[in-house]
C-alpha cells in the first residue's frame, strides 16, 4: 500500500534585500535559496504520478524530476535534467511567470502553497555556476549544416542551444554590441544581473555557438544573401519601435519610451555615469505609464536613480494589472505609488521644452472588451494635474521592422509581426523560421523560448531530411 505523505504547506520563502535598502541600489533584489532551503522546499513536492506542472511549462521541463534530485541533494543531477529542456535555467528561474504556468498547475496550489518551482530552478542554476567546472553535454557529430540565428534574445538563444546540441553549425547574430537581447538591454540588473546573462551566453559559446555582435541583418547583409550562406535561418529579432500614447506633448524633454530609459541604464550602464559616458537624468518626480513588468522595471529603476516620488499610472484597476504579482509587490514595498484607473491626456512643458505636468483623467471600468478585460471608460470632468518632471511610456512596442522592410516575399501581418505556421514556426519564405516577440508582439521570455524550441525542432527535421 502506498504511503500517504502528509501535505506540507509551508512554502519556503526566498530571502530578499530589505526594501528600504534595495530601493536605492542596483543589486539583485532576490537573494536565492540556501542549500537547506532548497532541499526543504523540494521535499514538499508530492512527485505526482501524472504531474500537471509539466503541462504548464512552455518548454516542457521535467519539473518533478529536477525537484526530486534537489530533494535528494543531487544538485548535479537536477541541473542536468533542467538543461535537457531549458538552456537558460538561471534566467527562467528569475523572470518566468511561474505563478501562471507551472506553479498554478501544482496540486498544492489549491491549498495556496504551490511548490516554488522558479526558486528551485534558480537554485540549481546558481549551484552549477559555483562549481569549478561546468559539465558540457555530449554533442552529436557535426552534420555539416549551417544555421544562422538572427537576434540573441531568449528565442534565438533557445534555437542556438537546441541546434548546436544536435550537431549543426550555428552562428548567432546580434545588432547591439552585447548579446542577450531584451535580457541585456531591457530587464534591469536588480531583477536579472548581467553576469547571469553573460554566463548563459558563455555556455552557448562553450558548446560551439559562434556569436557575431554589431551585425544588423537586413542592413549589414540582406536576408536573401544570408540564405546563400546558410542552410536554415531563424529570425528572433524581437522588439521594434516603441509605442507612444499619441497625446500632445510626448516629444517634450523628460518623456521617454521604456526602451530608451532601460537601454540607457542597462545596456549603456548610465547608472554609473560619469564613470560611463552615456548619461541618464536623475529626475525627482517620475510617472510611468503602463501596468506590465516593463512598467514596474522602469518605476523601480527611477527609484534607484534617486527619484523622490515614482508613480505608476495605469488606466485599468489593480485586478487587470498585467505585471507579475511578485513585481507589483516588490514595487509597492519599495515605495512606488500606484494611480489605478488613471489615463494621461496631455503633457505640458516649460519654455525650454522640459516636461512640467501631466493632465490625467479618472476612469471607470465598463463591459469586458475583446481582450476579455473590462474596458476603461473616461469619467467626464474628472481631469486633474500631476506635477512631474519625467514620464516614461511603457505601453509596449511594435515588432522590429528591419527584416520585414528589407525582405520582399516575407509575409507580415497588419501589426508588422512575421506570419508563421503555429506548429513549426515556419515563415512564408523557404528555409526561414521565426519566433518570439517578432511573431507574437511583446510577450514573455519563456514564451519566446517556447517558440524557439518549436522552431528548432522543425528546423532540425528539415536539416536532417534535406
Amino acid at each position: 500500500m502506498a504511503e500517504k505523505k502528509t501535505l506540507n504547506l509551508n512554502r519556503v520563502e526566498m530571502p530578499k534585500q530589505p526594501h528600504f535598502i534595495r530601493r536605492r541600489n542596483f543589486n539583485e533584489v532576490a537573494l536565492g535559496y540556501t542549500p537547506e532551503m532548497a532541499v526543504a522546499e523540494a521535499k514538499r513536492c508530492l512527485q505526482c504520478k501524472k504531474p500537471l506542472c509539466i503541462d504548464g511549462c512552455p518548454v516542457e521541463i521535467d519539473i518533478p524530476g529536477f525537484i526530486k534530485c534537489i530533494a535528494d541533494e543531487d544538485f548535479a543531477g537536477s541541473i542536468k535534467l533542467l538543461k535537457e529542456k531549458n538552456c537558460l535555467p538561471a534566467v527562467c528561474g528569475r523572470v518566468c511567470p511561474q505563478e501562471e504556468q507551472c506553479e498554478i498547475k501544482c496540486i498544492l496550489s489549491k491549498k495556496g502553497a504551490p511548490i516554488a518551482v522558479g526558486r528551485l530552478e534558480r537554485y540549481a542554476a546558481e549551484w552549477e555556476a559555483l562549481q569549478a567546472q561546468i559539465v558540457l553535454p555530449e554533442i552529436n557529430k557535426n552534420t555539416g549544416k549551417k544555421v544562422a540565428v538572427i537576434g540573441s534574445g531568449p528565442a534565438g538563444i533557445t534555437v542556438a542551444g537546441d541546434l548546436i546540441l544536435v550537431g549543426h553549425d550555428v552562428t548567432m547574430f546580434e545588432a547591439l554590441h552585447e548579446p542577450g537581447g531584451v535580457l541585456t538591454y531591457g530587464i534591469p540588473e536588480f531583477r536579472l544581473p548581467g553576469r547571469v546573462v553573460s554566463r548563459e551566453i558563455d555556455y552557448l559559446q562553450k558548446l560551439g555557438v559562434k556569436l557575431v555582435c554589431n551585425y544588423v541583418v537586413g542592413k549589414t547583409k540582406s536576408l536573401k544573401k544570408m540564405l546563400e550562406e546558410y542552410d536554415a535561418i531563424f529570425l528572433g529579432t524581437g522588439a521594434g519601435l516603441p509605442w507612444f500614447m499619441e497625446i500632445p506633448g510626448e516629444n517634450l524633454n523628460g518623456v521617454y519610451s521604456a526602451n530608451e530609459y532601460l537601454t540607457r541604464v542597462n545596456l549603456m550602464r548610465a547608472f554609473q555615469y560619469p564613470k560611463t559616458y552615456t548619461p541618464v537624468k536623475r529626475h525627482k518626480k517620475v510617472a510611468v505609464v503602463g501596468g506590465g513588468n516593463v512598467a514596474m522595471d522602469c518605476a523601480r529603476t527611477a527609484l534607484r536613480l534617486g527619484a523622490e516620488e515614482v508613480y505608476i499610472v495605469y488606466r485599468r484597476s489593480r485586478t487587470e494589472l498585467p505585471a507579475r504579482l511578485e513585481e507589483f509587490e516588490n514595487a509597492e514595498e519599495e515605495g512606488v505609488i500606484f494611480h489605478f484607473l488613471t489615463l494621461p491626456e496631455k503633457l505640458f512643458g516649460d519654455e525650454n521644452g522640459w516636461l512640467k505636468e501631466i493632465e490625467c483623467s479618472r476612469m471607470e471600468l465598463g463591459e469586458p472588451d475583446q481582450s476579455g478585460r473590462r474596458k476603461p471608460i473616461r469619467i467626464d470632468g474628472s481631469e486633474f494635474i500631476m506635477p512631474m518632471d519625467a514620464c516614461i511610456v511603457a505601453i509596449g512596442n511594435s515588432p522590429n521592422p528591419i527584416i520585414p522592410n528589407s525582405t520582399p516575399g516575407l509575409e507580415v501581418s497588419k501589426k508588422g509581426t512575421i506570419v508563421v505556421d503555429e506548429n513549426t514556426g515556419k515563415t512564408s519564405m523557404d528555409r526561414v523560421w521565426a519566433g518570439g516577440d517578432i511573431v507574437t508582439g511583446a510577450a514573455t521570455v519563456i514564451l519566446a523560448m517556447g517558440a524557439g524550441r518549436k522552431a528548432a525542432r522543425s528546423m532540425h527535421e528539415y536539416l536532417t531530411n534535406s
Partner: protein
Amino acid sequence: MFEIVERKMIVPNLHLLVVHAPDIVEEIQPGQFVIIHAGEGSERIPLSAADWNREEGTLTIVFMEVGTSTGKLALLKAGDKIPTVVGPLGKPTEIDHFGTVVCIGGCFGMGSIYPVVRALKQKGNYVVTIMEGRSKNLLYWENKLSEFSDKVIKLTRDGSYGYKGHIKKGEDIIRETGIKPDRVIANGCMTLSYKTTKEYSHFNIPVIVTLNTIMIDGTGMCGVCRCTVDGKMKFACVDGPDFDGRYVDWEELAKRRKQYLNEEAFLVHHSGCGGI
C-alpha cells in the same frame, strides 16, 4: 573587432577616420550612417559615411571632436582596433535624375555630402556644391567635391576664402546667377539644416536635410531620435535621417537636441579623479 586604417585631424577639430568594415561597405549607400562604440563605458555615436572603398573594404568617416566619446575616437591611430562599427543604418538619401541639385555641406557635412554629390553626378544631375565654414582653414575636400560638381561655391563667415557669408549668401548667389534648383540637399549641424530650410523654401522644391538627433541603438528600438515631421512622429534612425526640412518641427528638435548638454559638458571637464 574593426581595424583602424587611418585617423588624422583634417582641419581643426574635425577628424578623418578610415576603418576596415568590409560587410558594411558592401551595402552602404549615400546618406547612410554607422554607429561606433569605442569600448566599455563609451557612448554609441551615430556618424555619417563620408566615403568608402569596396575593393579594400574601408569606410571613411569625418567626425567632430565634441565630447568625451568622440575625444576617445580622436586618439585612435592606424592599427588600433575598436569593438563596434555597425551599419549601414538609416535610409539612403534619395538619388535620382532630378535636374539641378544644390548640395550644401558644412562642418562634418562637407564629408558626408561627398557620396551624395558623387551619386547625383553619376545620375546625370547638374550639381552645385556649396562648402560652408567659419574660415578658410575649416574647409576641406574641395578637390574631391569639385570632381563630381558642375560648380563649387565656397563660403566663409570671415571672408578669408570664397564668398563672405553664410547659408543666405549661398542662396543669393544661386538666385543671382539664375540657377533654378530642383532639389536642395544639406548635410551639417542643425543650424545649417535649419537655415537651409529657411532660405530655400521659397523655391517650392524639396529641401532635404540630414537630422543628427540623439540616438542610442540606431535600429528603431529606443525612440530617443523621434521628431515631428508633417505633424507625425518620426524616428530619425529608421524613417530618416533624411527629411524634407520644410515639414520638420525645428523648435521642438532644437529643444530635444539640448537634453544632455549639461551632462556632455560635465564629462569634458571631469578629469576622472572624482572631482571636477
